[in-house]
């Protein structure tokens, strides 16, 4: 024994010496140390570029990921979105996050009619199951009865004894979680939207749960030694020995256990640093205690259960379905399946005022349970997705040992019917597309405001259209507002100024705005004749000019549109607006005919202004056209137009002319009135292009305000439109020759408007007719022969020598005669114009040929024209005779002839009679 101990000691010493010999020669710096776990983790982080912060982030998210599970939801839409009382409306439910197909889900619709609030005291019509009070069951019955019966003639069937028997075998056995959940375990869950927790629904005591044996108010937790992370990434155990909460204990038959740390009881689980009491024992709650169970939310007939596979005559009678038709709703499902809401994502009923609708959808979610089987969570989705935890009777948990581990299941006892009321939806409110879609458009888009006082500004027409209107225009109310601002931004400096009322309260009584408020007022007109000193701005009025940015400004037109539906005051509203940038015009670019001189040719203003906006014609149509020409000057191809801005007081300088955005240069080669080193207030342009082409002349110049001596840049513009030369024959005196009245137009108000012929004129027989050729463009009429030849004919007989724009003749044909009057005109650009086009702008003379145009008209004697010209007693007799029957007048005429014959015959007899004394 002693010898054996010696041997053992020797072996240990030998081993020690051997180790000492091996390592005694190695430098200390190269010694291998034993790595700590934190050093290894740190090395791994660095080797694989793992960021500790990111890992912590992921870990923290992982910790709560169990609470981020997706729960099923439902959305409900209505068609139409703006139901009228009595109108059929369809509610469409869209479920999401269910694992079943839509045709496998149960849609339990419920319909609350006006006055059918929960509780007692509601009208009898609301208590459909006759239990003496209104419950959500009644709401469900109201809806599902409509759905299942499909307007079946229940009363007739009942009176005919249709419910004495039932032989249509229309029972349906509903399955929890959807029609396709055959033989699947049923675990129904409630999802708490706030915490994200999924509770298993139970029918046992609400408070049944695992209980830990902590005394007093102490809470069970798991606690572990506090560790900190040092600079190297390693963890260091707290020197003070303080603890922190590492989790929560689980309870099993062997007692409370923790995966990390030890079970403790503490007062404050959040801030606990010490284990106040060691937790050693607990009492687990079992499945049997909790008794998980599922219940459909289907409505039931009194004394019957929907979805139990039996649908007898009593139930048929209650649901008002056809007891001899297994599919009363004709939707492919049995009657009991329809009452169960299988595949009933659409519900159609006749909307009444005050109706509110809801739906709850039963199905199986994609979230799996923790049970040791194939089950997924069965849940319900509500139309407003609103079912708070506060509706529950209580929550708890039970523990179940699964595959060797104790698994805790949170439980809840809740009646989901309690959530139905808060999930009612008003089809006419909230999230539905009930607003009117209003579009507003203005024309013209860039109007001109005439500040000169001539009131020649554009008339701006603003019209509102409603895309989804349900009412006629006559039933729609419009309320317009007009606002003014220097710029078009939503919040300009000085803000938008409401000028609606001011536009019709201008200084000299001018009213520029049409009616802006009323039923059917979908269009307003604003005459843009606002002047610089017009005052806008309510209590702090400012001059119109102060709202301008240079020579332009912005108008904003707002319109509120409202449709009223019934006396209850239901309305649909909409609002629209349009922004219009307008330009002010005070000075105008004037247009002139040009003179051509010299070789090479140059041009100069002739002094004859065109497109002045005035005319000598008394014809209203001509006057209107003349005004139009002031805005859009009509010119003909291959003319040369002179342009000028009045600068007699020298307020303008630094001119820049452009045509359609391109420079328009005028130098001494063009005209002696221009300059080589700068642009002046005069310019010229050749009219080239095709008919209907427009050219916009823009002049930008600096203008000195003579009052303030400040200078600002102004822009003046003028639009020219190329037209084909045309001519029409008009009367110079509408009292002598007038357009024939063809008939009358009747407008919507019954007002009559005469329809004048454009081809036929009328006159009195014997009148001196003076007709005039009215040329377009107007200045053509001032051109002399041969630049403009005017060949008149009357009944194909040439009249005049082709030089005059007027003809005169006496209408002396018999009554009812017609004159065919024609004028054939030839416009010939002068040789000088053609030379100028060629010399200055390089336009070939071959491109400026003569142009032919003509017009014809008929002149006829007006019916009863002779009568109209008579005066005094003649007119009285003529009028009298005009009222006598034609047959009487003709007879009188013949009888007078007979009388005349007899009279003459009598005279002849008398004068040829032999005197008595001369007789033999």
């Amino acid at each position, binding site marked *: 024994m002693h010898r054996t101990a010696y041997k053992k000691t020797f072996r240990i010493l030998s081993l020690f010496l051997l180790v000492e010999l091996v390592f005694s020669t190695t430098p200390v710096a190269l010694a291998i140390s034993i790595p700590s776990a934190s050093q290894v983790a740190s090395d791994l982080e660095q080797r694989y570029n793992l960021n500790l912060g990111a890992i912590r982030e992921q870990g923290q998210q992982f910790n709560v990921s169990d609470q981020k599970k997706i729960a099923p939801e439902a959305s409900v839409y209505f068609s139409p979105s703006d139901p009228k009382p009595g109108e059929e409306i369809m509610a469409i439910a869209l479920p999401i996050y269910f694992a079943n197909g839509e045709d496998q889900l149960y849609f339990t619709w419920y319909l609350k009619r006006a006055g059918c609030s929960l509780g007692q005291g509601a009208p009898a019509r609301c208590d459909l199951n006759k239990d003496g009070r209104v419950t959500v069951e009644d709401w469900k019955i109201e809806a599902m009865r409509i759905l299942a019966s499909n307007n079946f003639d229940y009363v007739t069937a009942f009176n005919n004894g249709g419910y004495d028997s039932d032989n249509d075998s229309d029972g349906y056995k509903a399955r929890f979680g959807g029609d396709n959940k055959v033989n699947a375990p049923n675990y129904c869950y409630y999802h708490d939207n706030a915490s994200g927790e999924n509770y298993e629904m139970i029918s046992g005591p609400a408070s049944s749960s695992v209980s830990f044996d902590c005394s007093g108010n102490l809470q069970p937790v798991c606690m572990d030694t506090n560790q900190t992370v040092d600079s190297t990434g390693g963890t260091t155990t707290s020197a003070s020995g303080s603890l922190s909460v590492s989790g929560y204990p689980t309870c099993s038959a062997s007692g409370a256990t923790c995966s990390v740390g030890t079970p403790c009881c503490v007062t404050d689980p959040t801030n606990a640093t010490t284990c106040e009491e060691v937790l050693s024992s607990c009492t687990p709650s079992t499945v049997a205690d909790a008794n998980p169970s599922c219940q459909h939310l289907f409505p039931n007939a009194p004394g019957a259960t929907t979805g139990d596979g039996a649908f007898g005559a009593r139930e048929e009678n209650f649901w008002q379905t056809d007891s001899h038709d297994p599919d009363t709703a004709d939707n492919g499902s049995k009657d009991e399946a329809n009452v169960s809401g299988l595949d009933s994502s659409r519900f159609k009923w006749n909307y009444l005022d005050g109706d509110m609708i809801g739906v709850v959808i039963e199905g199986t979610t994609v979230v799996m349970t923790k049970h040791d089987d194939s089950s997924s969570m069965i849940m319900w989705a509500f139309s407003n997705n609103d079912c708070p935890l506060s509706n529950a009777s209580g929550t708890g948990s039970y523990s179940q040992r699964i595959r060797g581990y104790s698994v805790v299941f949170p439980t809840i006892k809740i009646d989901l019917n309690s959530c139905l009321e808060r999930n009612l939806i008003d089809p006419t409110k909230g999230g539905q597309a009930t607003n009117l879609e209003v579009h507003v458009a203005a024309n013209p888009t860039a109007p001109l405001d005439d500040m000169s006082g001539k009131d020649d500004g554009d008339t701006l027409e603003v019209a509102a259209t409603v895309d989804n209107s349900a009412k006629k225009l006559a039933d729609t109310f419009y309320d317009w507002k007009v606002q003014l601002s220097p710029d078009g931004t939503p919040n300009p400096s000085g803000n938008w100024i409401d000028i609606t009322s001011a536009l019709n309260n201008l200084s000299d009584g001018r009213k520029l705005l049409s009616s802006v408020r009323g039923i059917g007022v979908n269009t307003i007109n604003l005459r843009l004749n606002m002047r610089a000193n017009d005052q806008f701005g309510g209590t702090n009025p400012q001059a119109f000019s102060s709202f301008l940015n240079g020579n332009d400004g912005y108008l904003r037109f707002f319109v509120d549109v409202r449709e009223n539906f019934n006396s209850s005051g239901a309305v649909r509203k909409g609002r629209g607006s349009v922004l219009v940038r307008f330009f002010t015009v005070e000075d105008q670019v004037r247009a002139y005919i040009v003179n051509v001189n010299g070789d090479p040719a140059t041009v100069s203003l002739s002094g004859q202004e065109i497109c002045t906006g005035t005319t000598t014609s008394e014809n209203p149509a001509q006057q209107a056209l003349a005004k139009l020409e002031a805005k859009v000057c009509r010119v003909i191809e291959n003319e040369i137009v002179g342009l000028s801005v009045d600068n007699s007081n020298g307020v303008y300088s630094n001119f820049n002319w452009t045509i359609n955005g391109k420079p328009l240069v005028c130098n001494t080669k063009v005209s002696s009135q221009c300059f080589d080193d700068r642009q002046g207030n005069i310019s010229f342009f050749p009219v080239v292009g095709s008919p209907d082409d427009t050219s916009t002349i823009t002049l930008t110049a600096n203008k000195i305000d003579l009052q303030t001596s400040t200078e600002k840049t102004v822009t003046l513009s003028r639009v020219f439109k190329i037209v084909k030369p045309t001519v029409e024959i008009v009367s110079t005196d509408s009292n002598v020759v007038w357009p024939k009245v063809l008939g009358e137009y009747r407008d919507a108000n019954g007002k009559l408007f005469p329809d004048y012929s454009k081809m036929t004129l009328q006159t009195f027989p014997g009148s001196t007719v003076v007709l005039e050729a009215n040329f377009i463009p107007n200045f053509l009429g001032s051109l002399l022969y041969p630049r403009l030849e005017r060949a008149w004919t009357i009944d194909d007989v040439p009249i005049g020598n082709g030089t005059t724009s007027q003809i005169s003749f006496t209408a002396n044909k018999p009554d009812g005669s017609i004159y065919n009057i024609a004028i054939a005109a030839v416009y010939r650009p002068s040789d000088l114009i053609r030379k100028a086009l060629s010399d200055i702008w390089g336009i070939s003379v071959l491109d400026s040929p003569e142009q032919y145009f003509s017009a014809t008209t008929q002149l006829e004697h007006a019916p009863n024209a002779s009568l109209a010209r008579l005066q005094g007693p003649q007119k009285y007799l003529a009028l009298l005779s005009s009222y006598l029957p*034609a*047959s009487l*007048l*003709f*007879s009188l005429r*013949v*009888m007078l*002839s*007979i009388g005349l*014959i*007899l009279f*003459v*015959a*009598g005279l*002849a*007899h008398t004068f*040829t*009679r*032999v005197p008595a004394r001369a007789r033999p």
Partner: protein
Amino acid sequence: MSSNFLVREREFLVTGGVVIAALLLVGLTNPSTNLNPVVQSAIVSLAAFLVLPLLYCKMILKRPWTELGFQRGSLFAGIGGSLIAISAGLVFLFGLMHFTPLFEGARLPVSVEKNFFVFLLYEVVLNGWIALLLEVFFRGFVMLLWLRRLGFLSVFVQAALFAGLVYETNSFSTQMIPLLLFSPLAGLIAYQSRSILASWAASWFFLFLVDALLLIVP
């Protein structure tokens, strides 16, 4: 000499003037656009062929209307002449219908063909009226009053005047053929019987027979 001629022949000349004036009135009256042409013709014919002869005879010549043939006259000549004239007229008519294309496609108005009551009105009122007008003017006024002195020749003169009027007024038509055909025959009856009542009855009956013939013969 000439004044004696005027005095001696004043009645002949003045009556001739009235006849010509009446014919001109019928032929040259400007139609009014405001009145149905048929109504205008009826008014003018009534005035010129009936009213004018009656008034002229009574007021200017101061003679009874018997001068115009409004009398019974010779019954033998009237009835016998009528029978002969109608027979002769039918023979001529038969010849025209079978040997000339004048009556090809000739038909009465549809309403007359289809409705017997209208047919009766047509025959009694219209044909009777037309026959009366023609008898009074051409047989009574022209032949018996104005051209009495021409004797038998007056029959053909009045017939020629009637034919001339038809020609000048472009009134020739199938319906006018019986009137033209019977004009000299009616003149013969009136000339022999000195009564236009007989010739009126004969003309009326002849026109009725012609219309009946047109109605019967396809």
